[in-house]
């Protein structure tokens, strides 16, 4: 009955109003800030390498900011020694402490990651290694801290490769730790080397060499040092791009015409034309799922980035801002595209969200080149030209907060590539 319904409804109203009402506050937005962390010297570390490496690694990532601890006199060895009031007064949200025990030619390194506000230990681990492995151990600690806090694996143990121009007459292809240490030349030449590409399986590097007085493509095995000439067709051979399974290479050939994109096996066999056009098509790069190829074409007037699915022949335009967009590379999850965009004569590293198509510019330029994502997609490695005949390689964090040079010496350094997680 209508009256009964009315009656029940109002009882319910009463019931509801009798329970305790809790206020709700909506909080929208926030600031992208680095987490403050105090990285203290590990007690017993004679060279002070370990905490310095951890500090550099974490700072480079753009997620952490190291607190200045120059004025601190003594450092805790483990969690029991920690004076939380002291560290929170320094406005440090996190604290990394540790100790090193010397066992002859071996060292035992223990670290603690501490949450200063909650006054508790987040994680701890012990490492055993040779004395000269201290930097490697420190990189491992950085990785563990990074993963614990951000939820993403760290890349501080990975390697990078790059080309150096020495004294205007020699070119070398070098491999070093991600932070620039332990740099070693794997190729030396009197002619330029460009377009270095580390294979996804970590075993090889493909690159373009001008040693035959024209660009040709080599694939070099990093373990054996063996190099194979995989493309020496008439005209130019350049822009090698590994398929995600490391079995194929997309390359650019010209014959006697404009640059066009071809596909071949990684050993140089089974060459076939991939994209046909009357304009410049170059700089192919694969999507991580292996189903599409992104490339640069000037079919629309100036150089822009296009995408083509391998199962159909249609190329769709991807970049629409500005009149010069080149050097595309995909993030490991395939959602972001990094490239170089020219804006008022300045060449800058940009990132485009492929779903929202929003574009962010991560560097100021003026002459930035060759951007490539880190294996965890959180940083971009690129090279930047400086005044005079100088150039260096650097990383920039995806949030744009941190751009740090990779120091490999004073020589002109460019054309970098990044190893995968495992190599």
């Amino acid at each position: 009955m209508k009256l009964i319904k009315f009656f029940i409804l109002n009882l319910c109203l009463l019931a509801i109003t009798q329970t305790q009402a809790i206020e709700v506050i909506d909080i929208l937005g926030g600031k992208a800030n680095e987490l403050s962390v105090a990285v203290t010297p590990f007690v017993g570390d004679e060279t002070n390498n370990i905490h310095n490496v951890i500090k550099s690694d974490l700072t480079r990532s753009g997620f952490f900011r190291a607190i200045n601890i120059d004025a601190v006199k003594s450092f805790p060895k483990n969690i029991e020694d920690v004076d939380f009031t002291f560290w929170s007064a320094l406005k440090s949200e996190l604290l990394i402490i540790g100790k090193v025990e010397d066992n002859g030619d071996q060292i035992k390194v223990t670290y603690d990651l501490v949450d200063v506000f909650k006054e508790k230990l987040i994680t701890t681990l012990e490492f055993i290694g040779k004395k000269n492995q201290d930097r490697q151990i420190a990189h491992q600690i950085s990785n563990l801290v990074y993963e614990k806090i951000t939820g993403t694996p760290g890349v501080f143990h990975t390697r990078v490769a790059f080309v150096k121009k020495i004294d205007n007459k020699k070119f070398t292809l070098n491999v070093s730790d991600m932070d620039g240490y332990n740099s070693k030349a794997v190729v030396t030449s009197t002619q330029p080397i460009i377009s270095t590409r580390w294979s996804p399986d970590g075993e090889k590097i493909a690159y373009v060499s001008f040693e035959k007085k024209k660009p040709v493509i080599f694939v070099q095995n990093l373990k054996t040092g063996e190099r194979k000439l995989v493309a020496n067709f008439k005209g130019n051979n350049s822009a090698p791009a590994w398929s995600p399974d490391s079995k194929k290479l997309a390359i650019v050939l010209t014959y006697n015409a404009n640059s066009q994109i071809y596909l071949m096996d990684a050993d140089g066999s089974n060459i076939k034309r991939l994209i046909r056009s009357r304009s410049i098509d170059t700089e192919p790069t694969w999507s991580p799922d292996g189903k599409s190829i992104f490339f640069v074409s000037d079919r629309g007037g100036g150089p822009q980035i296009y995408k083509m699915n391998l199962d159909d022949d249609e190329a769709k335009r991807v970049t629409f801002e500005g009149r010069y967009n080149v050097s595309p590379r995909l993030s490991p999850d395939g959602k972001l595209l990094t490239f170089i965009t020219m804006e008022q004569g300045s060449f800058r590293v940009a990132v485009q969200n492929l779903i929202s198509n929003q574009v962010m510019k991560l560097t100021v330029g003026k002459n930035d080149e060759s951007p490539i994502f880190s294996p965890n997609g959180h940083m971009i490695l690129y090279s930047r030209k400086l005044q005079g005949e100088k150039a260096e390689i650097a990383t920039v964090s995806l949030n744009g907060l941190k751009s740090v040079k990779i120091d490999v010496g004073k020589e002109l350094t460019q054309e970098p590539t990044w190893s995968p997680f495992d190599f």
Partner: protein
Amino acid sequence: MDFDSKINQQSNFFTILIHLSLILFIIISFQWSPKNPYFSEVELWDAVPTVTKKSAAPPKPQSIKKETVVKKVETQTPKNTSKEAEINLKKKKQKALEDKKKKEEQIKKVQEDLLKQEQIKQLQNQLLEAEKIEKLQNELLEQELKTAEQEIITEDKKQTKRIALEGDKDLEAGRNNGELDKYKALIQQKIQQNVNNNLCGLDFLSLSFEISLLPSGELLSDPLLKESSKNPSCDEAVERAIFQSEPLPVPTDPKLFAKLKKLKLKFYPNGQPQ
């Protein structure tokens, strides 16, 4: 006529039912004991309580109303023999003692009576107090009944009245709501400044925490995660922001604070889609 009386009967029946169930609900939900389960055992005061001496009047020293038995020692001429005098004196002494005893007993009795009276009085007072409380509670009951009734019957009218009165600053209720909003805004601002969304990726995610506050603005305990953003690093970063915002700005007025001592905070670290 029949129809009318039927309607009358029905409406009577329903009004009685409504009243009964209202009373039932109010009785059920009315907090008879002033215990608040959310607070810890510590008693919190706005100011140091003044010590009220409610104890019984201190026992008066027995000597105050001592009736000084003025003994008039008659200085009789010693006509009789000393023995007679002695006996007389003895008798007199005895009598004096007896009198004294009697008097003391009288005093005692009087004091006992007084005490009894005081006790009776106390009891009477207590009774009065109890009666007062009962009366108050009854009055409250009546009031609530009335207001509940009003709310049910004139709900619409009240709504429109409220809307019309929102701009009226003289309304006490309106003023209180404004204060509440002000503090909510202050709390929102302070926490938002500390939210570090660096670890929250690029998607439009949301999460919520429930917090309990002390009058100092500090957290009573760790924030309780009610809805996760599905990104643990983001959840942790937002929780850190709450910690870093201590002490939160809270009103000093206890009634207003009571409304804010438990809060639900809903976060959208990357904002909301436009």
